[in-house]
């Protein structure tokens, strides 16, 4: 049971990196970017391919992140330079990445069972596999939000946030909003790909289909985090994303434990996100009814 809890939280920590990527586009830039469905397996694919070639795991993760950033740049250029709506730009990148990912791996599935991973390289800690994942996840899930907090507090980071908030206003303040959207998408997809690389190493394989539902899982984590842990300020929002990601994994573990067939997981997640997204409206209606009484 303890092992199950540790493993669940560890999973949440690894996935939180992806959720932060989704947070950047969905909340900070205020666009729904579907390229993450492609950049998540891209990260897995690049890392797996390099690990199979005996490349150092840390290098492989960095390379995965860079590949994701490139994918984000493609979406960003489609959106800003060619004026393709963000949703459509993301879908195009996602579909294109499916072929790219197959090419990167050379096949649909690449096993990592007999290769070194970031987790096997931590074996010197002499911890159980689950605890190793937990420790690695914790380091990453603390370091990345700290870095994001710094970045979004800089002049450029504040301009990115303002771009998502009110592009008209920030243009009037002399900022090229196209550059800011591009930067945000690059950053977001880089993080998502890093998460993909971590999850592939944790699972022991990379699969071309591992990205299905990434955006919904990301949204679920972001929204659950916001509802439960708040959005008082930017720092609070970032922490909420990490905790939301962990909470999402716990919810999934519980419903699976209670006997829900794993095949229904995506349906369950979609319903969860639909409910969470409609909460503000339902709450407003409820409040106004209470006032009427």
């Amino acid at each position, binding site marked *: 049971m303890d092992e199950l809890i540790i493993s669940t939280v560890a999973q949440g920590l690894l996935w939180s990196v992806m959720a932060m990527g989704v947070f950047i586009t969905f909340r900070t830039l205020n666009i729904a970017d579907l390229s993450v469905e492609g950049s998540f397996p891209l990260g897995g694919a690049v890392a797996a391919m390099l690990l199979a070639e005996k490349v150092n795991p840390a290098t492989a993760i960095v390379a995965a992140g860079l590949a994701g950033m490139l994918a984000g740049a493609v979406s960003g250029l489609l959106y800003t330079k060619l004026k393709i709506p963000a949703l459509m730009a993301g879908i195009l990148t996602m579909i294109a990445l499916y072929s790219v990912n197959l090419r990167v791996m050379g096949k649909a599935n690449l096993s990592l069972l007999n290769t070194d991973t970031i987790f096997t390289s931590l074996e010197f800690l002499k911890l159980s596999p689950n605890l190793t994942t937990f420790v690695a996840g914790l380091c990453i899930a603390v370091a990345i939000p700290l870095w994001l907090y710094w*970045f979004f*507090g*800089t*002049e*450029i*980071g*504040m*301009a990115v*946030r*303002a771009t998502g*908030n*009110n592009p*008209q*206003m*920030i*243009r*009037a*303040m*002399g*900022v*090229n*909003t196209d550059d800011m959207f591009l930067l945000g998408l690059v950053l977001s997809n880089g993080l998502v790909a890093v998460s993909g690389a971590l999850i592939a190493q944790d699972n022991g394989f990379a699969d071309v289909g591992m990205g299905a539902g990434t955006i919904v899982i990301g949204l679920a984590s972001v929204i659950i985090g916001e509802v439960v842990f708040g959005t008082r*300020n930017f720092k609070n929002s970032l922490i909420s994303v990490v905790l939301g990601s962990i909470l999402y994994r716990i919810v999934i573990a519980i419903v699976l434990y209670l006997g829900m067939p794993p095949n229904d997981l995506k349906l369950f997640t979609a319903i969860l996100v639909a409910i969470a997204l409609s909460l503000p409206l339902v709450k407003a209606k409820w409040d106004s009814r209470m006032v009427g009484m």
Partner: protein
Amino acid sequence: MLKVEGISKTFFAGTVNEKTALKNVSLEMKPGDFITVIGGNGAGKSTLLNAVAGVFKVDSGKIYIDDVDVTQMAEHKRAAYIGRVFQDPMMGTASGMMVEENLAIAARRGKTLSLRWGFRDDESVEFKEKLAKLNLGLEDRMKSRMVTLSGGQRQAITLLMATLRRPKLLLLDEHTAALDPKTAEKVLDLTKKIVEENALTTLMVTHNMRDALRFGNRLLMLNDGEILLDIHGEEKAKMTVHDLLEAFEKSGGEDVSDRMLLS
């Protein structure tokens, strides 16, 4: 200061919705000029301001700010010269960000942004002083998100933001139209104070004839994309709303919109 030479703009050219918003408009502003712009709906007031701000490129003509040809310059590049306040109080600020953050962004208008921290402590002190001068109690709300403030408070802050770094040109696009009369009056007073203190060259669009006469040293009346009336100094100072309406009809203005009359 600002020199506009024969600019024209047609929207939706070649479609049934074709609309010529500016017809060969020329205008020259001296440093320190405070021009009020009036005209009915669709007269081209906002189009003129947006053309100067670079929201769109004009079809023909030239725009110079301080002898720099900005005709082809992108909106965000022109921002280095121009401070703007919009009609919609939601428009001028980033609603999800704190008052302090909005001001910090405004303090860097037109500058190249870096990876330095977004605001400095000494700036916070300066912001607080300037907010206190607005007399709206906003100095205690530096950490509040803009969305929690009223329309009047937001417009006052937008005004402060537009002038935090002294702009060569201040563009006010009916910035009090969405406010209740009392708040509008307060924001107008603030506008006057800030413009006078900083000797700003200002172009203010309004639909209120009384305000147009009360403020500024020069008045433009637009009609159908053209400058119909251009009244300066003494002549403007002596004018009443009645005179203005008469002058408008004499110079061939078609119909005075109800909105202008009622204001």
